[in-house]
């Protein structure tokens, strides 16, 4: 080790707490970068491997019923490599221990061999394969875990009106159900929705579908055009009640994983940049001060023949040492957070194995970015040091010149005490440093706004979705749309006080070149249970003509009320109609479109039909009601509002809790670090001044107040600025999180602001107190000594 390096090491040890503060802020940015980039890598690589090994299809189609012979025609479509046809049907389940009925999506397994596409991954037990297997089901892992189901366990399902008991043969995963939730759901509710696999013959026979299929999966040949294949599939399946084929991008499960990756990509850039900028600024402050203190040493080194390059390198090494510590902490923090977040992903996504994979490239990139930030931070100070002529450096720096602060110049002078004036003038004399300190504190405040705006947004969504929009107790759906008189049957179920019918029909809405598939809901003109609510929020009345769509959908289709959209019905008789958009609805999950029930039925030309009903059930007869529903053959689905709401609250609560902790830690580190460093630098710069004050009779507390007065003013200025910045962060992040599947409103509450202010104020106060403790070390006699 050269002697210059030994000096470096000792200087670093002397400055350890400040260097550590900088390194920690840097580590926050790096940890975030490492976590997010590694999670992207983990998700992408895991997903791609899973898809490849389990042969996830490229094109999917649902239809009413087509004979198996059509499969050959599908296979003959140019560009199609493999075709798999099957049956997929939604049924009501009776799960041991669950009072309410659950919904199960039953998928058929081929009569011979294993599935060629969308192959289930067997976690435990086995798949119920073979022509002769009967009375066995394989269950999706999420549902099994939610109910503690094991292979060998039992479950009952109502198949086409007949209750049947099944034995669980195994627990499986499927690339089709990485996100195991009913279509359109914002979050999985594994208690009430599950996916199952059973032999084709048994399922087909139960629904009189033997020799036919209603579900298609296709892989494309290399170079094939997905669009052309989808068009050909649609043409071929049109007579069979096709609901329109779609590619992977529109696959609900795939899309959710994609959305998550997109959100991570946004986060992986924005926040790390913020933290690294703050760290660069802090490095600059520390190094500038260090170089100012070592003026004479620099002069001596140069006078003794050290080159500019050697002196410059010496100080750069100083900042790189900080970078090394920052990268180390950042990597450790990033890996730790990454593991925590991967755990969180297990709540949402089901992969055979989702491990945290450290993206080593990002570590290198992160180190390079931090080094660059530190380099930028110290370049100016080092350049000044290097260009200092030795003779000049030997002389002490000229005394600082001051002038009255702006506030005093505009007439406030007589109101201020001498120490307040010192603070004001110190701030004004170094506008850039003061501005950046203020900005960094504002950023710390702003960071805190983000997770709580998520929390408040989710609380708003919960209230909005389940108090304002949906006021039913339970929603029952029929196996098949049936005549509207079925509503009378629902009304006769035990405890039902109110029943309102609805009709769901899959459609494709198109405006110009853009189209989306979704469920068009037919509802009563002005229902009291499931209501159509606008952004106000106020209830919209559905007129006899026209359609109300989600405002997100309106954005995507670029339509406004008054414009027309083309609605293509994807079920039963295929029809295409132009309907005017007459209003925009507010909703936060998926995309929806609403029409008045009778108007919809007229459009469908199927007579008065309903898909199910929303019900209000008297709590005292809840048990009877559930029992009756489990026995009702025609009810295919039963969605209990409160259980969905609770599931949603629990799942979001866990993930938001983690985010809150993470951001809280980051904000505290930044606030603490920036104040500590500023106070220490101020202490170092004003040591003589403060010692003089002590000699003149100021108590330690009074001198402490003079020391931190400036920081108090900066903090006070930073807090409101931070709230504005935080609102901006929240808006930006919420905008990036807002996808077609999930959206959050921007909700900013006084509680949120108050919490952010409290945390930053406390962290700053504590940090200032820590730094001010150094005042005890002040050498009073030093004040008496001459400067030279």
């Amino acid at each position, binding site marked *: 080790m050269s002697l210059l390096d030994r000096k470096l090491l000792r200087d670093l040890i002397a400055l350890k707490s400040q260097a550590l503060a900088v390194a920690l802020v840097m580590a926050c940015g790096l940890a975030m970068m490492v976590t997010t980039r590694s999670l992207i890598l983990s998700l992408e690589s895991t997903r791609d491997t899973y898809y490849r090994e389990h042969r996830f299809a490229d094109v999917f189609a649902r239809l009413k019923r087509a004979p198996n012979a059509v499969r050959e025609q599908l296979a003959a479509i140019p560009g199609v490599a493999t075709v798999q046809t099957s049956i997929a049907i939604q049924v009501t389940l009776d799960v041991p221990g669950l009072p309410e009925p659950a919904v199960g999506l039953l998928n058929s397994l081929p009569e011979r061999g294993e599935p060629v596409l969308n192959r289930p991954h067997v976690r435990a037990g086995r798949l119920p394969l073979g022509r002769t297997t009967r009375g066995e089901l394989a269950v999706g892992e999420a549902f099994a875990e939610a109910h503690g189901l094991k292979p060998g366990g039992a479950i009952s399902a109502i198949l086409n009106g007949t209750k049947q008991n099944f034995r669980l043969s195994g627990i499986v995963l499927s690339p089709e159900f990485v996100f195991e939730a009913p279509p359109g759901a914002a979050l999985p509710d594994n208690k009430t929705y599950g996916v199952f696999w059973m032999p084709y013959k048994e399922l087909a026979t139960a629904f009189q579908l033997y020799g036919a299929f209603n579900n298609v999966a296709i892989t494309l040949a290399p170079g094939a055009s997905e669009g052309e294949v989808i068009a050909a599939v649609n043409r071929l399946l049109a007579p069979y009640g096709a609901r329109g084929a779609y590619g992977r991008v529109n696959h609900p499960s795939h899309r959710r994983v994609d959305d998550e990756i997109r959100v991570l990509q946004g986060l992986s850039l924005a926040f790390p940049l913020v933290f690294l900028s703050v760290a660069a600024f802090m490095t600059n402050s520390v190094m500038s001060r260090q170089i100012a203190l070592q003026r004479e040493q620099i002069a001596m080194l140069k006078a003794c023949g050290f080159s500019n390059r050697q002196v410059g390198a010496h100080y750069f090494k100083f900042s790189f040492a900080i970078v090394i510590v920052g990268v180390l902490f950042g990597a450790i923090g990033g890996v730790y957070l990454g593991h925590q977040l991967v755990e969180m992903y297990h709540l949402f996504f089901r992969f055979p194995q989702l491990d945290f994979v450290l993206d080593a490239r990002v570590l290198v990139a992160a180190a390079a970015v931090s080094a660059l930030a530190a380099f930028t931070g110290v370049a100016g100070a080092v350049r000044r040091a290097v260009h200092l002529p030795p003779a000049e450096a030997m002389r002490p720096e000229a*005394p*600082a*010149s001051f002038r009255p602060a702006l506030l005093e110049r505009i007439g406030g002078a007589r109101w201020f005490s001498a120490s307040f*004036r010192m603070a004001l003038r110190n701030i004004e004399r170094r506008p850039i440093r003061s501005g950046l300190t203020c900005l960094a504190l504002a950023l710390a405040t702003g960071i805190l706004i983000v997770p709580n705006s998520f929390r408040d947004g989710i609380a708003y969504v919960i209230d909005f979705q389940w108090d304002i929009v949906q006021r039913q107790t339970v929603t029952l759906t029929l196996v098949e749309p049936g005549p509207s008189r079925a509503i009378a049957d629902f009304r006769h179920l035990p405890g039902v006080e109110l029943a309102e019918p609805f009709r769901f029909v899959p459609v494709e809405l198109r405006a110009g070149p853009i189209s989306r598939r979704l469920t068009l809901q037919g509802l009563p003109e002005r229902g009291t249970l499931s209501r159509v609510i606008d952004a106000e929020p106020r209830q919209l009345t559905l007129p006899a003509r026209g359609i109300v769509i989600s405002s997100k959908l309106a954005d995507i289709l670029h339509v406004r009320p008054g414009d027309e959209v083309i609605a293509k019905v994807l079920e039963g008789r295929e029809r295409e109609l132009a309907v005017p958009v007459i209003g925009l609805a507010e909703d936060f999950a998926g995309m929806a479109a609403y029409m008045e029930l009778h108007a919809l039925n007229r459009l469908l030309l199927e007579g008065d039909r309903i898909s199910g009903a929303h019900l209000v059930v008297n709590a005292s007869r809840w048990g009877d009601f559930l029992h009756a529903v489990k026995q009702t053959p025609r009810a295919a689905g039963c969605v209990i509002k409160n259980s969905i709401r609770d599931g949603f609250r629990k799942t979001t609560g866990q993930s938001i809790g983690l985010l809150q902790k993470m951001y809280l830690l980051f904000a505290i580190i930044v606030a603490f670090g920036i104040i500590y460093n500023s106070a220490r630098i101020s202490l170092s710069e004003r040591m003589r001044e403060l010692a003089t004050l002590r*000699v*003149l*009779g100021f108590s330690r507390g009074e001198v402490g107040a003079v020391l931190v007065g400036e920081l108090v003013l900066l903090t006070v200025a930073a807090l409101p600025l931070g709230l504005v910045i935080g609102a901006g962060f929240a808006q930006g992040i919420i905008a990036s999180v807002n996808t077609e599947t999930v959206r959050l409103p921007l909700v900013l509450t006084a509680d949120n602001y108050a919490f952010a202010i409290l945390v930053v104020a406390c962290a700053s106060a504590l940090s200032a107190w820590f730094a001010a403790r150094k005042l005890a070390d002040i050498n009073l006699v030093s004040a008496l000594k*001459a400067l030279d």
Partner: protein
Amino acid sequence: MSAAVHLPHPSSAPPAGADREPIFHVRGLARVYGAGTAAVTALRGVDFDFFRGELVVLLGASGSGKSTLLNQLGGLDSPTHGTLLYRGWNLGTTDESGLTQFRRDAVGFVFQAYNLIPSLTARENVALITEICRDPMAPEDALELVGLGPRMDHFPAQLSGGEQQRVAIARAIAKRPDVLLCDEPTGALDVHTGITVLEAIERINRDLGTLAVIITHNAILADMADRVFTLSDGRIVNARTNARRGSVRELAW
């Protein structure tokens, strides 16, 4: 501050000469830094009494112990042995906050390097101190006393060395201290400027009856004192009383 501390106020003291109760009563004062073989003895037992209205000069070369003595008198450091009484109050056993209170109320310091707060104007530098002590004079009056009335709204960087030192004197006297402790007050000044500064100290001592203690290595200053003590190797090696105090202008510059 400790509640027991009640400082006698200078204005309650009798006029110079009549008062034979010393302001400082010092006996066998010693200060040793460090311990064992590394121990360095800076003061080896000094005895004296300083009285109100006196101007005392402490002479000595670098390392003679004069700064250590000044630190003891100013409440910046505590003795290792001996008695150090300020108006009968034992400073040697006073705690940190008591010493702070002592400095705040009783002592005016003048430093070699002025030690003004660069971010405050001349007037504000004085006001900074008058804000924290009882019964101060108006900062403007203190600055008038040192002849800086017209420049009181200038910042330190806009003042000459002599002017800065006079601001420091105004700051020291604005609290109406019992004691003015000056550490090489002209050390950083040229002769002409030094004279104006010493005149200011002399006037304060004469007009307000403040005990002024000046430490210096410049023997010429001895002629302006009532009494002169010469220190060497931590001891008082010579003490003399001038029959007549010379005026600053008469000193053999």
